[in-house]
């Protein structure tokens, strides 16, 4: 494919971008200055026009989400509103937001500040997962510099707009990436998702209207302001899948890493960009969007990696975390590992998810250990049916993604485990010398 000028990752590999001075020399905070000179509603309109969809997993239109935030009726008594930036990146296979925070913290701060201006929020919390200590300290330093440089505080860039921004560290819980679980956690509670409606745009953090956006989503915003919605719309597959996108590729490829492409690059191109399959082995399967996304077979290699194309192919783009598996991979074992993850991370609030994820792990492990029965495939589907749509948040539905796709697309492998009373794949050793 034609060379693509990196947008979101343009500062990766430029350590000077970590400092306020270095970031500004590269045109940083010009987008914020431009936004502050605009009417907040005009900023929302521009983001709406760009077609930017949430990069956290759900792909919800970002501008539309902002427009749901109620306006203050009385100028003298402004509504308290919040922006919570979702930096709780915990979807297995995903590591793109960490890169954005560690290499270009001011890009995120600028995106957050523009969003706060657009919805007139005076406080922003960046909720970062507790394990990301390095990213958290880089952000803390960048925030300190931004306060000292007049970017944040009582008068953002001299505009009179008051904005405070804080890093809030989580403590290790996948469910806190779910937006209402995150709000509970921010408020100092167990991160158990809330009943919706009301949605966070109406009743969010501390009972106030709240926008929640993913790190990558917010990092797109300064570029939309600087270069315009039309430029942004010109990148991507169609008007519903626009802009640059980060793809985090891991597993059996030669050069795993975070790659930036126009959204809608094909999986084949992604794979080639990552140096192809590890040691040239054949592709067996890939997960296109993190642990929650149903696994696809190798015949889907030409799928366009955008929201709608991946959905059409029978999976989801999710966080665009692409996990690649070669022909030595046992699909039952892979699914069992993901089932273990969802069982561990289910918050326990809704019975179908709490109990169902446990049963999925147990049944998959028994198949993997050669103790499965012929009925186990159907049993797994039955558990999936009893979890799907039966829980308050999306974790239950996410948990059935890898399991249902295993039964639907790799049933012969389950049957082989049951028939042989053992896993047909030899345990792979990666390191020769002990």
């Amino acid at each position, binding site marked *: 494919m034609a060379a693509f000028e990196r947008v979101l990752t343009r500062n990766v590999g430029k350590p000077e971008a970590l400092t306020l001075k270095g970031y500004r020399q590269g045109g940083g905070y010009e987008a914020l200055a431009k936004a502050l000179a605009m009417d907040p509603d005009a900023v929302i309109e521009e983001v709406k026009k760009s077609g930017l969809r949430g990069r956290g997993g759900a792909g919800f239109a970002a501008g539309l989400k902002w427009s749901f935030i109620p306006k203050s009726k009385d100028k003298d008594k402004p509504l308290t509103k919040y922006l919570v930036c979702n930096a709780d990146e915990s979807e297995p296979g995903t590591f793109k937001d960490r890169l954005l925070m560690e290499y270009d913290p001011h890009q995120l701060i600028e995106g957050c500040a523009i969003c706060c201006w657009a919805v007139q929020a005076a406080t922003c919390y960046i909720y970062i997962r*507790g394990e990301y200590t390095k990213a958290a300290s880089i952000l803390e330093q960048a925030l300190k510099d931004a306060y000292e440089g007049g970017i944040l505080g009582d008068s953002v860039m001299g505009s009179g707009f008051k904005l405070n921004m804080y890093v*809030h560290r*989580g*403590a290790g819980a996948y469910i806190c990436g779910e937006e209402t679980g995150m709000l509970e956690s921010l408020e100092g509670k167990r991160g158990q998702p809330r009943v919706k409606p009301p949605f966070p745009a109406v009743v969010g953090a501390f009972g106030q209207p709240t926008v929640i956006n993913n790190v990558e989503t917010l990092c797109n915003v300064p570029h939309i302001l600087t270069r315009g919605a039309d430029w942004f719309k010109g990148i991507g597959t169609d008007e519903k899948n626009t802009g640059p996108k980060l793809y985090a590729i*891991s597993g059996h490829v030669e050069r*795993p890493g975070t790659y930036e492409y126009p959204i809608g690059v094909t999986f084949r191109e992604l794979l080639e960009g990552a140096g192809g399959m590890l040691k040239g082995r054949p592709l067996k399967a890939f997960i296109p969007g993190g642990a929650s996304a149903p696994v696809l077979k190798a015949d889907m290699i030409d799928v366009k990696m955008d929201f709608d194309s991946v959905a059409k192919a029978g999976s989801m783009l999710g966080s665009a975390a692409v996990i690649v598996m070669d022909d030595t991979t046992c699909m039952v*074992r*892979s699914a069992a590992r993901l089932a273990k993850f969802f069982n561990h991370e289910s918050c326990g609030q809704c019975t179908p998810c709490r109990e169902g994820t446990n049963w999925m792990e147990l049944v998959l492990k028994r198949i993997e250990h050669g103790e499965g029965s012929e009925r186990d495939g159907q049993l797994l589907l039955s558990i999936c049916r009893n979890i799907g749509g039966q829980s308050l948040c999306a974790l239950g539905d996410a948990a059935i993604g890898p399991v249902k796709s295993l039964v639907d697309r790799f049933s012969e492998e389950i049957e082989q485990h049951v028939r042989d009373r053992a896993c047909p794949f030899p345990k792979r050793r990666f390191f020769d*010398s002990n």
Partner: protein
Amino acid sequence: MSVHEPESMRPAGPERRGGGFSAAARAELDEIRKRYPTTEACMLPALHIAQREWGGWLPDEAIEAVAAELDMPSAKVYGVVTFYDLYHQKPVGRHRIRVCTNLSCQLRGSEEIMETLAAELGVGEDEVTRDGNCSYVHFECLGSCDTAPMMMVDDEYHENLTPNRVRQILKGLK
């Protein structure tokens, strides 16, 4: 915790010292209070501070100290502690090792990393070595899948691991 040697039961960090937050910890918490409209929102930051103060884990007295600082029932604090993986309710080693074993790392050899740790440290998962130096656990995805297999030692990421590299890292943990 499985008890294999009585010595391993002692806290790896400073001895229990009684009392609540130190003056420095309280000053840190007071700064944090200004960030939130409610006191309860200081819960996670307060627990992070307490865990550091109490040598890497949260004995009952640490939980009670947080409850006292935030003026909340200790049962409520306890409920939060049990929800999150990074809060420990039993002694840990001076160095805490977390090995990512989720799918991307599993596909690149994380099990061999776990085996190496078990062999080198001579204790099981979530147990503390006799000298109190180390404890290790498998962990869910740590967001470093492109450098699999990987592990986190205290706050530090160690990436592209091999068994030999793990042995070198362990030697450096004194």
